[in-house]
């Protein structure tokens, strides 16, 4: 760069106030160079990101306004624009409505359950009395890193009506355990418990980080004022942890709104569609080749997630 500017303005003594033209061109060239460098680093990612993610998001939206089916892929001219037909059809589709109710139940029951368990584990581990904290932390985190397919094998074995451990334990106390996954009333609750079991370790780690950020002198002051442990928890821990709890609740909510893997590997959405989720319904429509319809369903789900996130920002905004 220094060479280049010297070449364009050889007569200027170094350090003199630069005249407009050469300095401007130097600056322009510098800017161009910076842009090229920035994009040289960004280009490989950006190309892959556009092709495999950004473009599909747009294509999905476009598809949702067409009657595209898997058989049309070879003959794109047969595809018609159908406006919002797919969306109106969704809301008269009994299975979609059923899956929406199931998903809402899953979120409304699953999020609080997971959060309470995670908060209990985090508070216990944070109490300062516990040794082997690392062991407990690792233990609670195990299901988070394990494959859902492996977990499904274990859980179907545990919940097996005859040889499963759960019903064997119930038999010890004289209860004849039900067929958990094949009973239309019990299948969804079973999956909710399984999801809470699977995700509590992740939330626990987030809550632990939040708990450790609560200043210790707040507890000292509360102790001096004669507050019991429960009162300290209610009046110090919970208010201080509010942002963390909200954050944890929302990411869990976003994840649970997309609830899919558990029914896919455990119940295939049954019995009697009692564990069919919105994502699962979309996946089934994809399987039937109804691509446009599936895309519309996925955008409804997307909107629900955006709405949930907006609510979070509102709640957090009030706080700050």
């Amino acid at each position, binding site marked *: 760069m220094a060479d280049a500017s010297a070449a364009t303005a050889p007569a200027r003594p170094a350090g003199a106030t630069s005249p407009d033209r050469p300095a401007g061109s130097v600056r322009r060239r510098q800017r161009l160079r910076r842009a090229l460098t920035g994009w040289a680093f960004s280009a490989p990612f950006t190309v*892959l990101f556009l092709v*495999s993610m950004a473009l599909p*998001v747009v294509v999905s939206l476009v598809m949702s306004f067409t009657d595209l089916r898997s058989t049309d*892929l070879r003959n794109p001219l047969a595809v018609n624009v159908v406006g919002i037909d797919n969306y109106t059809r969704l809301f008269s589709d009994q299975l979609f409505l059923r899956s929406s109710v199931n998903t809402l139940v899953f979120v409304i029951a699953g999020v609080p359950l997971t959060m309470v368990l995670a908060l*209990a584990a985090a508070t216990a581990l944070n109490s300062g009395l516990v040794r082997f904290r690392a062991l407990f932390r690792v233990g609670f985190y*195990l*299901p988070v890193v394990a494959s*859902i397919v492996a977990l499904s094998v274990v859980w179907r074995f545990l919940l097996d009506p005859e040889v499963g451990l759960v019903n064997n334990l119930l038999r010890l106390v004289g209860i004849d355990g039900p067929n958990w996954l094949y009973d239309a009333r019990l299948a969804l609750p079973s999956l909710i418990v399984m999801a809470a079991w699977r995700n509590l370790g992740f939330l626990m780690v987030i809550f632990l980080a939040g708990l450790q950020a609560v200043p210790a002198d707040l507890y000292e002051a509360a102790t001096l004022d004669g507050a019991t442990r429960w009162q300290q928890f209610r009046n110090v821990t919970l208010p201080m942890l509010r942002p963390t709890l909200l954050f944890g609740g929302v990411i869990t909510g976003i994840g649970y709104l997309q609830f899919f893997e558990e029914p896919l590997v455990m119940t295939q959405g049954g019995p009697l569609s009692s564990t069919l989720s919105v994502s699962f319904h979309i996946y089934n429509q994809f399987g039937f080749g109804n691509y446009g319809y599936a895309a519309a369903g996925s955008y409804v789900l997307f909107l629900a997630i955006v709405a949930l996130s907006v609510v979070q920002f509102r709640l957090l905004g009030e706080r700050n």
Partner: protein
Amino acid sequence: MATKDTTLRTRDRVATTVLYVVLLLGLLAVAGPFVWMALSSLKPEREIRDVPPTWWPETVTLDNFRGLFSRLDFPLYFLNSALVATLVMVGNLLFCSLVGYALAKLRYPGKRALFLAVLGMLMVPGMVTFVPQFVLVSNMGLTNTYAGLILPFLVGPFGVFLMRQFLQSIPDELIEAARVDGAGEFRIFWRVVLPLCRPALATLGILTFLASWNNFLWPLVVATTEDKYTLPVALALYSVGENERNYGLLLAGAVVVVLPVLIVFLVLQRHFLRGIATTGIK
């Protein structure tokens, strides 16, 4: 004074005991199924079905694991899983650290838009991209190929976010000093910046490898013949229908899927936990 101390100490001891009991019960409920899975995989099918069940295997056998080789092609699925996960990991490490560096340390037009697009992508549910991705991959003729298994996962918004957050903590002076010394931009990145990113790279590497290893839905639809199955796909497809309650083999398969991950996790757990601490995302 002395009696008050003693009562306090007794109360503390009671509280501690209660705490441990609760924690141990929790641990039993959460980690217990894994132990149960491992122990049961070593029992013969007949003993697995014993009522009441045996806790410790009476007869220890490796038959279930042998079945994974004779009745299924587990070594091949294992290699497929390892290959796909390794390539996905390498892609994420390379592409996300390059763009993460640009986003954190370089100034160029379009940077803000790019970052916002990446952040926005974090909110998009997988189902939205799933169908177009499948159409894309099948139009490119990549169904049932390794390329098709890998392509949609080579980059991800999470990796960019993680790398950018970390790279922002690297002092600008270091990069400026290298620039003054006349090092080229790529050389600065490769020789100065990247070595400082080792902790973030370790976290990102582990998390992307793990996500790919456990990935189920995509390989389920893209791998159409057995020679391209990954471990979760093979195990899931074997476990439906007539083998649904063939627990011995299924449990052994689950052990093979989970064990490598558990070992990696136990050895490198601090990297997992740092990933969450930095970004709040799995």
